[in-house]
């Protein structure tokens, strides 16, 4: 059946192509497929027939209208939060020369894309305070897993210490990915008073067999790891590598982890002009400090500057491909092929749009809102930050003093306000706690409304 997405599907064109091949039926091209496995029915997919564009649009609208967005910006956190996506980022990412192109294997015809990714690498390396950032992993969770695998290869050791304050889904992903390499993933306890990684527990578990220590800051509970520098120094005493996951939006205000001595940095570009997308796609950030062995073991694509063979012009191309699967096969540093180039370009556009001024101001705007939220919550006397004296950024783990967080989240949702996730999703013992996320999207009155409604709800819940 002819279709407008398949230009040669018209009968006369088909006939002409078949004439070149000396066949009468397209079926003849499949004469080597054993008859007994040839599908003897039509695929039952879609809606029984090809749909017109207006039919598919209507159907789609009916489906997505079953999704509910809260009337004031969402307060849901848990590693990703709703941020503003500037129109410029959307405009650039909808340039078809970017989004319909393949991996830039043919560099000369893809200079613009290559330069944009080179700029991403440069901007991100500066932000995180490292020498090199690759041209993206799938997202923050897989960047973390790849960082752990890389560290184990570099150090030729199997023990990995992972902070119990890190995002539980990141920890799960690290575990799944480390299974093949037979790594021993050991958790480092949380200090129950501060919500930070317990330094003495870390010291007791660090030893000569440790390949790396994985820390997230701000961590899953929204708490800034204030002893980050000490953690990194302790790690280095045992010839282990320090892997630090941080939120790029915090780095206008907080020091880049590479500048504090982290060997490997990871993160996720969600929020840097990249929407929530119900969890994906995003892009994973993976960077390393200046070290030959780390570079040799770095997974994923890397773009480098070079010059033309005639020597007179600057250009960009993919480099160090001998680390990658299409050349090294089972000895490659990773199996990654398709990555998240488009989101990486989006993050570069976002950083360029905000500049150093904007990024610092954005960090302060988020920090200020976080501070304001905590103050307002404490005023209610019904809720408080789970860790009272800690420093929070963007997300706050809130304790509802014995009231079921699941119930609170549901009741708020019924009144048009989204918070969460309730921490019981990950920690049974924290059944009266939930995360709340504030970003530049929240005006003072939004936070006021949240607190007022929350107060009201909490008074009604036992």
């Amino acid at each position, binding site marked *: 059946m002819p279709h407008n997405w398949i230009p040669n599907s018209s009968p006369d064109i088909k006939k002409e192509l078949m004439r070149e091949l000396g066949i009468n039926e397209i079926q003849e091209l499949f004469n080597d497929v054993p008859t007994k496995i040839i599908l003897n029915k039509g695929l039952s997919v*879609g809606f029984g027939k090809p749909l017109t564009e207006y039919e598919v649009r209507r159907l789609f609208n009916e489906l*997505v209208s079953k999704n509910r967005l809260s009337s004031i910006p969402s307060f849901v956190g848990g590693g990703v939060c709703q941020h503003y996506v500037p129109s410029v980022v959307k405009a650039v990412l909808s340039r078809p020369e970017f989004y319909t192109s393949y991996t830039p294997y043919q560099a000369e015809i893809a200079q613009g894309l290559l330069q944009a990714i080179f700029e991403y690498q440069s901007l991100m390396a500066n932000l995180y305070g490292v020498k090199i950032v690759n041209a993206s992993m799938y997202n923050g969770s897989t960047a973390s897993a790849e960082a752990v695998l890389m560290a184990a290869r570099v150090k030729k050791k199997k023990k990995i210490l992972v902070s119990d304050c890190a995002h539980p889904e990141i920890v799960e992903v690290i575990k*799944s990915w480390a299974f093949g390499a037979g790594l021993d993933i050991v958790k480092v306890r949380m200090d129950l008073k501060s919500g930070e990684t317990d330094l003495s527990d870390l010291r007791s578990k660090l030893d000569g067999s440790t390949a790396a220590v994985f820390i997230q800051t701000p961590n899953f509970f929204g708490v*800034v790891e204030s002893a980050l520098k000490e953690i990194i120094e302790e790690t280095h005493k045992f010839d282990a590598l320090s892997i630090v996951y941080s939120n790029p939006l915090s780095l206008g205000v907080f020091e880049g982890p590479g500048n504090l001595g982290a060997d490997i940095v990871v993160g996720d570009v969600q929020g840097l002009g990249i929407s929530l997308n119900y969890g994906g796609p995003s892009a994973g950030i993976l960077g390393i400090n200046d070290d030959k062995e780390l570079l040799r073991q770095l997974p994923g694509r890397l773009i*480098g*500057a070079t*010059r033309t063979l005639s020597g007179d012009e600057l250009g960009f191309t993919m480099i160090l491909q001998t680390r990658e699967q299409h050349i090294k096969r089972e000895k490659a540093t990773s199996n990654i092929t398709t990555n998240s180039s488009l989101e990486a370009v989006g993050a570069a556009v976002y950083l360029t749009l905000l500049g150093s001024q904007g990024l610092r101001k954005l960090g302060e705007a988020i*920090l200020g809102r976080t501070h304001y939220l905590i103050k307002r919550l404490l005023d209610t006397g019904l809720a408080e930050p789970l860790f009272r004296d800690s420093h929070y950024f963007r997300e706050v783990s809130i304790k509802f003093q014995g009231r079921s967080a699941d119930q609170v989240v549901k009741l708020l949702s019924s009144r048009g306000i989204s918070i969460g996730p309730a921490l019981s999703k990950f920690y049974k013992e924290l059944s009266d706690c939930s995360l709340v996320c504030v970003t530049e999207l929240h005006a003072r009155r939004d936070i006021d409304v949240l607190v007022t409604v929350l107060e009201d709800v909490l008074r009604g819940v036992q």
Partner: protein
Amino acid sequence: MTFRQAKWEEPVVFELSSFSRQTFLIDDDFVNEASEALKRVPKSLIRSSELKIPNLSEVEVVRHYNRLSQMSYGVDVGPVPLGSCTMKYNPKICEELASDPRVTDLHPYQDEEEVQGILEIMYLVQKWLSEITGMDECSLQPPAGAAGEFVGALIIRKYHHDRGHDNKNEMIVPEAAHGSNPASSAMAGFKVVKIPTAPNGETDIEALKSVLSDNTAGLMLTNPNTLGIFESSIIEISDLIHERDALMYYDGANLNGILGIVRPGDMGFDIVHLNLHKTFAAPHGGGGPGAGAVCVKRELVEYLPVPIVGFDGRSYKLRYDLSRTIGRVSWFYGNIVPIVKSFVYIASLGPALREVAEISVLNTNYLMSKLMRLKGISLPYGEGRWRKHEFVVSFENLLKETGVSAEDVAKALLDRGLHAPTIYFPLIVKEAHMIEVTETETKENIDRLAKAYEEIVDLAYKNPQAVKSTPTNTSVKRLDVLVANHPKTLAPTYDYLEKLKSQGV
């Protein structure tokens, strides 16, 4: 047709302006609270090192990236016949609908009741992909094809482990397989056992038999294979693998050529991964994002990564109750936006998906037939066999006779406004061009491609240097890859580049 790509001497973003301008506006509403909070934070944690991000006005940013986009090339500009990449046209309706805020603004931890629409879409995609592959259930969590392979390999590992067969640690992979197959197997902890390709272009069955043992865990295969040839002995191969209590893994990168005609499940495969960004028209984004579903037969459903989407007759739910799950391979539920694009694509075509396969195969064989008339080109393996979605030609003779390599021919194609195919792959073909035109290419463009090859080959015999000095119509001439990769001149960021410049390199 002449072609001149845009050529802007566009500075690297750090050199765009010597001024610092007002950047994107951010409110000042909480500066007091921010400074109060900052007072309490330990000094060592506050950023003191330079943020080297230029401060530009909006118009400067927009022009910069638009100029860069003009020096790039995608399917919306012209044909991209990269083999095994299935660079088909990305319908605009898919793009527009997937950018709806009721998709892009959903938070993965929103209450399930609030996201019934997206869960229903995901549920339908799971169902449709099961039907298309002849499997029983799918997980949409793997963010790309290689991640899907990794999931498949982990499922195989855990399946054998649960049956007490930890000795099964060998994964068989054909030499001609995509590089990600052995890489994914190795990441899952398998020893990779290679088998050669027979002269007919199919898996060498005798070689397969000779490597089978009690340690065989599985076989990773793509069918049609990377030569574009259908493995006609697939049933025998499946039986051999299953007799050893091993599993059959299907690399779905090449599914486009058999959609609706023959299904991996019916060929005997137990696990399939799909690349939604290839077969189901989600765009490739300059390298990604993709989306890589994994589908399995009934006896392996419990091993899938969690969550998958279920339906209890009333509402859609994220199901975590798979008893033998390999766990999570990525956070959240997958790359939803490309999944939504593929939903719109499959919904739009429905039963016409079969047309996709038929025309992609017709187009491919048509181009192959035209190229086979040219001097210096040969078609190794599988003589007299039709190809499916792609074919692989060798320029070995051309290189011997003229000194013009497969790479030179590729660069000369660029000069004619055509993207080059995949080159030097699969490794079993010397001086290879792996060509896949897909069903979305017009006859006129396929003829143009054939004509371009003809002109280039002619030129190679008359004036090889003229081919070797291409490209000249792209925004830059041929690049020096040795300088790019040399440790002394390696420049993966602007800081490295600046340092090299200051050294006068």
